[in-house]
């Protein structure tokens, strides 16, 4: 809409509309009905179902493979990742030492979370649904220099506790 058509009155109305929303939200923060601002970290939001937070490597929870890792070490997630976050090294399962169904499993699964842009490409590429993105979003830390602080290994990603 061109500016000329809005006119003086229109502009003032738009300003007022915005201000009213601000005031309403301001009130909401103190317990009003329209709460958009939450008192983080005292209160935490429940994310939408499809929110893409920190990854998790899944296990089978039922069926013949119950307890085994879903990941088969195919590295398709690493291939799909535009930020080169993921490094997978595969190895072969043996009867005594079985990690996943089939022949192949990931012996190394590293994610460099300083690089991740949370695009979700890895979860889309995964043929077994092994890598999923959960709702954890508190990933920041001030100990960047600590070695591997942001390097998540397979152990960190498997069986990870998720908070909400």
């Amino acid at each position, binding site marked *: 809409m061109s500016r000329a058509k809005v006119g003086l009155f229109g502009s003032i109305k738009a300003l007022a509309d915005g201000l009213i929303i601000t005031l309403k939200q301001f009130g909401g923060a103190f317990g009003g009905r329209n709460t958009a601002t939450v008192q983080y970290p005292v209160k935490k939001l429940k994310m939408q179902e499809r929110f893409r937070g920190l990854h998790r490597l899944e296990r089978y929870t039922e069926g013949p493979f119950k307890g085994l890792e879903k990941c*088969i*070490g*195919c*590295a*398709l997630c*690493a*291939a799909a990742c535009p930020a080169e976050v993921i*490094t997978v*090294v*595969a*190895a*072969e399962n043996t009867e005594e030492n079985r990690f996943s169904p*089939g*022949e*192949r499993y990931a*012996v190394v699964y590293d994610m460099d979370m300083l690089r991740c842009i949370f695009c979700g490409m890895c979860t889309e590429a995964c*043929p*077994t649904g092994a890598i999923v993105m959960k709702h954890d979003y508190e990933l920041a830390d001030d100990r960047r220099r600590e070695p591997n602080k942001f390097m998540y290994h397979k152990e960190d990603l498997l069986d990870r506790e998720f908070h909400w």
Partner: protein
Amino acid sequence: MARKPIEYVEIEIDGQAVKVPANQVVLWSARELGYDIPHFCAHRWLVPYGACRMCLVKVEAGGRMMPKLQTSCSLMPAEGMKIWTKDPEVIQARREQLEFHLLNHPLECPVCDKGGECMLQDQTRDHGMGEGRFREQKRIRPDASMNPYIRLNYKRCIHCKRCVNYASDIDGSYFLQFVDRGAETYIESFDDPAAAPRFSGNVIDMCPVGALTAKSYRFTMGRPWEQELKPSIGALDSVGANIWLNARLGDVARIVPRDNPTVENGMLDDATRFGWEFIEDPRRLTRALVRGEEETRVSRLAGETEAGRILGRIVNEHGPGSVGLLAGAGLNTEEYLALKLFAGRVLNTSYYNLGDCMSSIEVPDDATLATVGSGFTTIEGILNAATVLTLGCDLFEEAPSLGLRLDIAARRGLLRLLNARSQQSGIDRFAELSLDYPFGGLLRFVRGLTNALTGQGEVPPEVTPLAERLRQAGEDCAIVCGDEVWLSEDPPTVLKALAALREAIAQASPDTKAVYLNPVYKSVNSAGALLVNCFERLTDGRLEGVTAPVGCLGKVLEAAAAGKLKALVIFDKDVLVRYQHRDVVEKALKNVEAVIYCGAFPNATSERAHVHLPLGTWAHREGFVINLEWRVQKRLVASIDSVAPSVLDVVNGIAAAMGQSPVAADLPALRAQLARVIPGLPTNTLDDLPDQGLPFSPKPPALDRLKASTDLPAEVAAPDGQLLLTPKRFLYNDREEIRFSRVFDKIPKPFYAFLNPADAAKLGVSDGEWIGLGGGHELELPVQLAAWVRPGSVVVNDYYLAQPANRLAGAAPAAVAVKKLAGVGKD
């Protein structure tokens, strides 16, 4: 060269008029022109087979539509033919055909090693249905091992038969066969467990799917798209097979052919393909070893300082010419220049020898250099010659990819193959004529053959059939000679005799326009070593402050043995085992005050060194190598975590410890210098040299005519009750690429005394029993009966550290007493 010029015919593809070669099937011509015709079973090495039906096209020939679609992989073009590759009928047929291929094919690309470089995957994406309709049980059968290198995943095989056809028509080992019929067909391996596979790895590349995969690559080495590829050169022979060195996460992952049609044409031998583990083997020396009272490991710098201290003292005390320098032929060409500068400017000596072919005493004379530096042809030239004569070599062992290509050409009748050497060899199978003579009799044979062709001098009767054939050598003839030349007492004499033979053939065969002589050198860069060693005479290059060598390997060792040299500096050369006269080397190592060895791995010579300095393997050092057709090729380093010094680093380190200036600032400077001193050598920078390499022509001294001797040396024969000791080069021996790669531990290596069954019967020994060779049983080896051994000889591996053949072959040819060993048990 002798090939008929290619004729072209005009055909129409998808409405476009195109010219295609008349002797090539439509599939390849169309693909070369950019028409995407899918295919599985057709392969450029194989004859058309027509199994997979993926290459169907619609054809109109002679003005009439062919009633059915035709397989373009077996369709020869004819003038005026019309082809449709994108007709709806064709597309429909392809899609349905592909559905058939996928009926029994598992959906397991994510875990399949071929995924990412799989023809079935690509074609399913481009031409497939997108979804399967087959809901029934797919065929299953467990995986199987085909040989120590290869694993078969039965479910993935699409029965294209490429591998089986390769095993029968190309490498001729018949190690793979189809068993059963129809959908139940499977591949069975008939690998001889006692024989080491030689060309089996090529089926991994040929298999269009992931049915045949490399055990050493399985799962752990990453996916194909994750590899970093660096062009390099197969290090085991002088063909210089073009390879891609694949690396991932700082480790070498695999070696695959780089497919240079003019060099190895994608045909790698198994030792080259699978021999990469040694690069990162923990036994590789990463620090220096100093042996005084006891052995200590010190840093590389401390080792170089110690070496420099010793050498500095010796050069100071004894003056110029007191140090000898030897180098093997696995180094890069610019590194030879560094060594030459090191010898001349730092060590101040002309007792040096670079390379491994000229083991004689004197430096090769002009006639010898003219023989190796001119009159050779390219590998293509050898393969296109009308007649190929191999003399004194077993190409399957010495230059496997060249041997295999010659073998195929002979099988297809594209050339006449004539062989003469001391033992029968694998390449005889399609040769028109194969002769043998006693080991050490090469010179006699060559001169006799020359005499037969020129009609002068004495002619031994055994050469006559060969002379007959050489009189009709056809349009051109290539002589390929090999190891027996280098193992002979005086290689230059034999080379000159071969040059005389070349002239004799040219004169005796009236319609022969050209005769070439191509020596197969011992190692990957023998030609480069020879070039730098003798560059004052092989080129018109000059270098300040460096003198030409006074002699060859023999001269340096004898000077050391005589006490004239006070120290020996040896770069990557196991002289103690590799030089024929072990006694001379023993004496040399004893009589010098210090031995400085530089090499990646310990070996017999390095154990005797006072200082052993580390050196990178070929995968750690980038540079140029020159192959048997004088093609300059480059090898680059892949990004692997392990770092190791180059020869330049080491000589600069020693020079610094001696208080001298470095021989060159860095490798690029050295390369530029090499390109300056040897005009025409395309080594200015690594980047400028194309991956395929460039040919180079040395400029040897011009000779009017070779004055060749016609005297026949005496016939070689072992006295009664003795056998002729024949050291033979095998593909699998104790060189470090094989000794330190675990994959070869499972390979049966030819560390035997090979006996002709007739001789074995006389001695009363059978397979697996042990015999002692020599008066004092200097060699003790298990026996293997082999019909290819010439009666009266015993063949042993020429590089076996535990039982080195040169303990006996003081002066080849040596006749040895042979005795059965009772006490030593069977293997």
